[in-house]
């Protein structure tokens, strides 16, 4: 007989459109982070470190990278005989076939998966946050309070509370009310989108609400449980937690890793973050190079100079090139004599020689000023940037380019050059 006390359902189907070209070809949870990781490594590692060995990963948007990364779950020890990791895409049914239309709808469509493990509790996670959390402690809290639903919540500064879903709890942490992005918040406890449900409560709620369009946990399921008079509790979390939903917050969270003792410390022994590393060899640092305040992944080769940057695995940085305040992801190659300032360069990008990124004044981006801001230059994956090009701030480039594509061998600040929807 199969029995798992708690299983996890990890929502990884979202695009994360505010990450711009980084998520053109991959879902947000597959976006690389911190040199060698992908965002989904954090919740997956938290699961196995918390003793949760059965994880359903719900995918929908551009799942290839995610599927390839997760595989059969080997890096996280989630390749189990019973349980382990399962990828759960939307599927055709006898009647009512549909995509996942909301967070809770995705879970609803996989009731059979959950039932097959005969769980007492179901942990709902989202695949786009950077944090370390022991879900077992949260489960203990859930059991002690005889709760039906436990919501992880963290205190945020009162002035920022209006950006979050806020829970209002009494001194016993029992939730008395909710506010979604309130104008005048009555509490500063922000919901983190992490829930533990007692299985029967979740099952009943999903069945009852199954006809609701775009069924969502925050908007529908939690309020439903609250109105029914179920016992809802807030589990307060006080560690590092970062939503890397925008390019700027993504860049910032990466840059925090290079502090002397970062707030989010990857070097701690007792809570390791696991990832699928296909690149094993050490990195080679050549003569005439200089590296300060940076982290660099396996198998990279540095001939140039790197300051305040996060460099992935298998990256090559050419001679006399200077990289500052930038993120360079796996397998990208930068030529010689380049200057890279405050850029986010996605995977498998090839940058020629004498390329300057991040020159000139800041001008708001012409197409997506709210996405490409803060002076960043963003380069999409598999792009080819020709030698001699000079690129301004708040700009974005994605695709294969030749120098003739650019008037005066430059792309001025605020410009967008994105080629092709589907990659051929």
């Amino acid at each position, binding site marked *: 007989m199969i029995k798992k006390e708690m299983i996890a359902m990890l929502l990884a189907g979202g695009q994360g459109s505010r990450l711009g070209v980084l998520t053109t070809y991959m879902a947000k949870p597959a976006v690389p982070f*911190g040199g060698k990781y992908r965002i989904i490594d954090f919740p997956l590692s938290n699961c196995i470190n918390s003793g949760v060995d059965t994880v359903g990963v719900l995918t929908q948007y551009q799942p290839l990278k995610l599927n390839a990364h997760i595989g059969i779950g*080997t890096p996280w020890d989630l390749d189990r005989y019973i349980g382990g990791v399962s990828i759960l895409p939307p599927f055709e049914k006898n009647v009512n076939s549909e995509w996942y239309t909301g967070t809770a709808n995705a879970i609803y469509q996989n009731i059979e998966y959950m039932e097959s493990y005969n769980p007492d509790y179901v942990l709902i996670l989202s695949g786009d946050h950077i944090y370390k959390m022991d879900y077992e402690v949260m489960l203990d809290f859930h059991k002690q309070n005889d709760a039906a639903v436990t919501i992880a919540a963290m205190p945020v500064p009162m002035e920022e509370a209006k950006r979050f879903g806020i829970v209002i709890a009494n001194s016993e942490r029992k939730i008395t009310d909710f506010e979604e992005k309130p104008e005048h918040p009555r509490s500063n406890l922000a919901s983190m989108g992490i829930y533990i449900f007692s299985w029967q409560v979740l099952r009943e709620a999903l069945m009852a609400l199954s006809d609701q369009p775009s069924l969502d946990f925050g908007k529908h399921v939690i309020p439903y449980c609250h109105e029914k008079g179920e016992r809802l509790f807030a589990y307060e979390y006080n560690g590092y937690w970062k939503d890397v939903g925008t390019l700027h917050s993504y860049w910032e969270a990466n840059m925090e890793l290079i502090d002397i003792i970062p707030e989010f410390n990857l070097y701690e022994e007792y809570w390791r973050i696991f990832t699928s590393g296909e690149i*094993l*060899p050490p*990195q080679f*640092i050549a003569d005439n190079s200089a590296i*300060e305040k940076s982290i660099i992944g396996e198998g990279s080769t540095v001939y140039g100079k790197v300051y305040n940057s996060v460099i992935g695995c298998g990256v090559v940085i050419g001679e006399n090139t200077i990289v500052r305040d930038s993120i360079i992801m796996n397998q990208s190659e930068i030529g010689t004599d380049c200057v890279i300032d405050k850029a986010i360069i996605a995977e498998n990008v090839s940058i020629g020689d004498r390329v300057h990124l991040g020159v000139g004044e800041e001008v708001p981006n012409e197409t997506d000023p709210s996405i490409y801001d803060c002076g960043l230059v963003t380069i999409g994956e598999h792009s080819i940037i020709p030698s001699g090009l000079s690129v301004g701030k708040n700009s974005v480039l994605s695709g294969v380019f030749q120098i003739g594509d650019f008037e005066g061998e430059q792309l001025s600040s605020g410009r967008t050059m994105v080629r092709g929807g589907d990659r051929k």
Partner: protein
Amino acid sequence: MRAIGIILAGGNNHRMGELTKLRAIAAMPIAGSYRSIDFALSNMTHSHIQKVGVITQYNAKSITQHLSSSKWWDFGRKQGGLFVFTPSITANSNFWARGTADAIYQNLSFLKNSHEPYVVIVSGDGIYKMNYNRILEYHIEKKADITVVCKDMPSDVEAERYGVLSMNEESRITNFEEKPIEAWSHTVSCGIYVIRRRQLIELIEKCAEEDRHDFVSDILIRYRNQKRIYGYRIKDYWRNIASKEDYFQANMDFLKKDVRDYFFHQYPDVYSKVDDLPPAKYNVGSEVRTSLISSGCIINGAVHDSVLFKKVFVGNNSYIKNSIILNDVYIGDNSHIENCIVESHGTIRANSYYKGENGIQVIVEKSDRFVL
């Protein structure tokens, strides 16, 4: 599949000194991320040899720990897989393995219970990439009884430290001598053999009957005129580890671009146990030149012409030159390390000074470590 594999990983060499106090040569860390046995294991898996026995004896724990899971080399299979043999007392034998042939004899059931027609026997201390199927094809084409992989060493290498052999024009081995007093040839055996499984069983059983125990002297050399023993000459990179100096040089070789490109960036990859360490971190004040740095390292000082293994911490204002720092070493501030091999898990106190004056100095330093 046509062959099974045997990796001989039980040996030690007194010339390794304190480096093999706690580990076998096959478990020596190589090039920042690997151990010597990874090369043989990766060659096996890339040659589609699915059933491999690893024979251990000296400091077997170091090997069994590294092989605690076979999945890193893709051996986690229903059919075949990785078998690790340590000597054990049985109803018929209470000896340690007295030689390589004896080691195989004590695990003869592994050979007898297989059905593959051929066996690839390799030593666990070689650093090389090889598709063993090439040797197998050659072996079949030559109708050989045993094929020995060999390499012409450059004239400045002391060939008398190896098994030395000579071949006639059709590559049949005419003479073979293990560690001769004076090298009469620069062609040396790489310790890689292909042999038919039933032939091997027969020879090993005969050896055991006659109380002979060594594969090289009691089979290869003794039978060189009776059996068709052929040499297969390779030109690619190959190196083995038999002494402290070999070991140092083998690691330093990886600072050369061609060696790095060959092992790190060309298909097929070398596999190893994955450690899930964070990326290496370079703080203000770090200055690294012509060095290999592994994951989990934190660098605050200067590192020149050196190989740093995983999780090495280099303190402020320290200077490391022409050295190998094995995994998990903590080097305090203001220290100087030159021409050294620092044993793993060592703690070098602040303001230390080490310099190998005549050759390479091995530092085994187990001071107390105070870390935040």
